[in-house]
């Protein structure tokens, strides 16, 4: 929206690609293969979570009572909304509206930051109560001797997820920088499209983590 020193230039197809189609589809497929490796990594984490739930149902029931599902619901809203605004950024990119692309990216960043604020609040209450993993545990009054297992899993799973949220926000910032240099067109939205794919994966992981930690049981 601010005054630009140099107008964004049209994207040029890299010399090793025949045309925009080949370039775009190659980039998209590369991203999907990367996302596949991400899904396998999170898959191991989630299968581990279900295994622990199966092994220590009492610990999960007791631990869950110490999580606030309303905070989880707010974070679900933040993630869904930022996913929506990321798709809007791609839509405006196809229409060549740089200003609206930037506005959508800023909105996505805002909602992602909202997610982090809620998460930080949740983490701080865990630190306050001492419901920390393994040897750092110092909370009293828990009846299930494996209650720490739930919180160990909670921190491992949400920690990895939060790390991805941070990387996703970094991608949004990168898109904002790119939007000042390159003009998005109906034929070229690759940075926004790929960042949107990454952000959608963060949503997908949350669709399993949220019920596993906050709802089921």
């Amino acid at each position, binding site marked *: 929206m601010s005054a630009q020193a140099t107008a964004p230039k049209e*994207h*040029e197809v890299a010399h090793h690609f*025949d*045309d*925009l*189609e*080949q*370039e*775009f589809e190659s980039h*998209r497929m590369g991203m*999907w*293969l990367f996302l*596949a490796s991400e*899904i*396998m990594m999170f*898959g*191991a984490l989630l*299968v581990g979570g279900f*295994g622990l739930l*199966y092994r220590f149902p009492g610990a999960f029931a007791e631990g869950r009572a110490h999580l606030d*599902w309303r905070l989880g*619901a707010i974070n*679900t*809203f933040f993630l869904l*909304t930022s*996913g*929506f605004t990321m*798709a*809007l950024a791609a*839509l405006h990119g*196809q229409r060549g509206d740089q200003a609206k692309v930037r506005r959508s990216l800023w909105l996505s960043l805002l909602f992602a930051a909202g997610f982090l604020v809620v998460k930080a609040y949740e983490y701080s209450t865990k630190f306050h*109560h*001492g419901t920390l993993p393994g*040897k*750092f*545990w*110092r*909370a*009293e*009054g*828990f009846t299930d*001797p*494996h*209650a*720490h297992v739930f919180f160990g899993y909670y921190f491992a799973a949400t920690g990895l997820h939060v790390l991805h949220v941070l990387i996703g926000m970094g991608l949004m910032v990168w898109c904002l920088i790119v939007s000042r240099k390159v003009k998005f*067109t*109906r*034929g*070229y*939205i690759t940075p926004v*499209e790929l960042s949107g794919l990454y952000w*959608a994966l963060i*949503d*997908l992981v949350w*669709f*399993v983590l949220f*019920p596993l930690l906050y*709802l*089921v*049981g």
Partner: protein
Amino acid sequence: MSQPASNGYLPGHSYDAKVLLRVYIALLVCAAAMIAVSRVPLEAIGLEWVDLHTFKALIIVALSAVMTTIVSGFLMGLKYESSKLNTLVFLGNFAFLALFVAFTWADFHFRGLIDPSFEKQINWESPVDKANAAGGEGHHAE
């Protein structure tokens, strides 16, 4: 240079604002339903004849699957792909995950049967018990 391919093809699917809005609303509804199912006391409406624990979990898993399908299809664009190669990659993921789940479940379920001493081999020193015991000595009083 930055022209569409010679056959007039433009890369990627065309995003539609109306579709995106519907997708967003559908996802919000699914998330709300997920929370509602987990919170509603089904015992109160005469559904005590089913295993509530399993019943609720199944509905939540189904909703989670619906949300995953919506996001991968519309927001990640698998629905609009012409080659379906990325769809294959995505579905292949779940095939391997299913294999992983099967072996993990078998391990969790049967190891104790094959080797009864298994349970005794695990020596979980519980920090929860330790903290509770230390509580009597005024350590980290909450």
